[in-house]
C-alpha cells in the first residue's frame, strides 16, 4: 500500500494545530500548503499575516514570514513585494482583520493591482477575542456584542468582501469558497491555486474569501457549524468566482 494522503511538504514537520476542535483554519492552511507544494514555490515565498487566529499561520507553514499590526497585512505585503518583486507574496487574514480594521489597506492593495495573493477567512465573528460582532456578522446573528442579534438600525449591514474586491480594477481574481464539504474543499483548493497563479503571471491581485466555521464561538458542534455555513452564510455570501482575467 502506498500513502496517498499526508501532510504537505511546505508544512513544518512536527506541529499540532492550536485551533479549536473543528475549526476550518486547519483545512485552509493545509490547502495553501498543498498549493505551495504543487506550484513548487515554498522557497520563494514571503508571507505576511497580522492579528487574529490567522496569525498562527506561521507556526505551521515552513516559510519566511513577517508579522504586521492588526489590519496591516496587505500594506506590509505591498512593501515586501515592491522590495522583492521576484518573490511570491501572500497574506492570510480573518474577516475583521481584512475587511474591518484593514479595509483601506486591503482595498487599496487591490486597486493598485499589486501582484499579491490574499486569503480572508470569513467566519462572521471575531474568533480570537471570543465571538464579537464583526464586519461580516449576519443579520440576526447573536454575538457577545450583539446579544439580541444584528439588526440594521443598531449595527448596520455585513460586507460582501469578494464582490467588493472584484469591483477593483487591479483585481485579477476574486472568488468565494467554502470548506463545508469535500466537494467544496476541492473547489476551494482550485481557487487558492488560481489566486497564486495570477500573481505568478503578473496579472494583478488574487483574492479568495474562505467561508469558515467557528464552532466554539457559534456554540455549535463542528457538523452543526458546517450546516450553518450552508444554510445561513451561503444565501448571503454566495460561492463563486466574481472576477477572473
Amino acid at each position: 500500500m502506498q500513502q496517498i494522503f499526508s501532510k504537505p511538504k511546505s508544512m513544518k514537520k512536527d506541529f499540532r494545530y492550536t485551533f479549536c476542535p473543528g475549526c476550518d483554519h486547519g483545512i485552509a492552511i493545509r490547502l495553501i500548503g498543498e498549493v505551495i507544494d504543487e506550484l513548487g514555490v515554498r522557497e520563494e515565498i514571503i508571507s505576511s499575516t497580522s492579528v487574529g487566529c490567522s496569525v498562527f499561520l506561521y507556526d505551521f507553514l515552513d516559510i519566511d514570514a513577517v508579522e504586521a499590526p492588526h489590519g496591516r497585512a496587505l500594506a506590509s505585503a505591498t512593501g515586501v513585494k515592491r522590495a522583492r518583486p521576484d518573490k511570491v507574496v501572500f497574506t492570510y487574514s480573518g474577516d475583521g482583520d481584512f475587511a474591518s480594521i484593514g479595509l483601506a489597506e486591503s482595498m487599496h492593495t487591490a486597486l493598485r493591482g499589486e501582484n499579491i495573493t490574499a486569503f480572508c477567512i470569513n467566519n462572521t465573528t471575531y474568533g480570537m477575542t471570543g465571538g464579537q460582532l464583526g464586519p461580516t456578522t449576519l443579520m440576526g446573528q447573536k454575538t457577545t456584542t450583539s446579544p439580541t442579534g444584528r439588526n440594521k438600525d443598531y449595527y448596520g449591514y455585513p460586507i460582501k468582501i469578494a464582490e467588493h474586491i472584484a469591483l477593483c480594477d487591479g483585481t485579477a481574481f476574486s472568488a468565494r469558497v467554502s470548506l463545508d464539504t469535500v466537494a467544496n474543499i476541492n473547489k476551494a483548493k482550485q481557487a487558492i491555486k488560481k489566486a497564486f497563479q495570477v500573481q505568478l503571471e503578473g496579472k494583478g491581485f488574487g483574492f479568495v474569501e474562505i467561508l469558515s466555521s467557528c464552532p466554539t464561538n457559534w456554540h455549535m458542534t463542528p457538523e452543526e457549524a458546517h450546516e450553518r455555513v450552508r444554510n445561513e452564510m451561503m444565501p448571503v455570501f454566495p460561492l463563486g468566482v466574481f472576477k477572473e482575467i
Partner: protein
Amino acid sequence: MTTEKVLIKGNYAIAQAAVNAGCQCYFGYPITPQTEIGEYLSGKMQELGRAYVCAESELGAINMVMGAVSTGVKAMTSSSSCAVALMQEALSYAASDELPVVLVNVMRTGPGLGYIYPAQGDYNQAVYGGGNGDYKIIVLAPSTVQECVDLTYRAFYLAQKYRNPVILLADGLLGQMMEPASFGEYPYPEVDVSGWALTGAKGREARKIYSVAPDEKKQIQHIYDLHKKFEVIAENETTYEEFNIDDAEIVLTAFGSMTRNIKAAMNVLRSKGIKAGCFRPVTLSPFPHNRISELALKGKDFAVVEMNMGQMFKDVKYAVDGKSKVDLINRPCGEWLSVEEIVAGVERVMQGGKAYAANI
C-alpha cells in the same frame, strides 16, 4: 556625486540623501510641511527603477516600510507630527520586530491638526514614543540643511547596524529652508543583512519576524534583549555638540534648528560679559545624560531653549538631577525664539527670574 555645494531646500536634501544612501523603496502620504520629500522621490525613484508607492494612509505607508525592510532592503517614509501619530503603533512593532525602519518627521504644530507653523512639540512623541510597551527608537535631530544630509545617511546606517527604527526629527523651518549643502558619497559601509532578512526559505530554515511570544519567559527575555541592545547603542552612538563649554557659567541647550539661535545668543551674551556656552544633543535618543550630568557637577547652570512647552527640558533636569539650576526659555510654536528673546530670557533667569514662555 561630488563634494560641490549646492543651494537646496531641507526637504529635497533629505530626499536626495536617501537616494544616495541606497534607499530602495519610499512609501508616503502627503502632509505639509514635508510633502516635497515625496514629490522629489516620486520621479527620482521611477527614474532609478526603485519603488515608490503613494500609500492610502500613513498607516499604510509605515507598514509598507516594515514589509520592505524585512526583506533586507533600505526603505523609508516621511511625514509630519499629527500623521506621525498614526504611525506609532507600527513603530512599536518595528522596534519589537527589530526592523530597520527609517522615518522622517518634519515637525509642524500640534496638538491635534494644529497648523503648519514650525514647532518642536514632537520631542516626546519621538523620544518616548506613542506606541505600546517598552521600546526605544533612535532619534537624530538635524540643525542645518547640511545635517539633513549627514543625519539621513546616518539614519539608514544605524537602522541596519542595530536593527532598530530610526526617526530623523527635523522641523518645518529646516524642511522649507534653503542652504548650501554638499552630498558627497554615502559615508558608511553596507551592513550585512543576510543573517536575518526574509528572502524565501531557500537552502535554510524558514525565518519568522514577529513580536508575539505567547510565553512569559520568552517575552521577558525579549524585552531585556531589546534594552541591552539600546545600552550598546547609547554607549557607541550618543553624539552631541558643545561650544565654549569649559568656562561657561550657563549652558544654553537646544536641539534641532533652535541650535542656530542659541549659538548666536551665546555670542551676544559673551560680548556682554556673560560666560555662556552651548550644548546641543545630536542624538535625542540615546540622550547624552552622562555629559549633562558631568557639566552639572561642575556647577554649570542650564537654560533649555525649545519650541514646545518644555519637553527636552525634563530630560535635562533628569540628567542634572538637582546638581545645578535648569531653566526653560520657550514658546509653544510659530516664530522661532529670536536671538534677542533668548538673550533677554537668559539674563532674566540669571537674575533669578522666570523666563517661562518668553513672549508672554
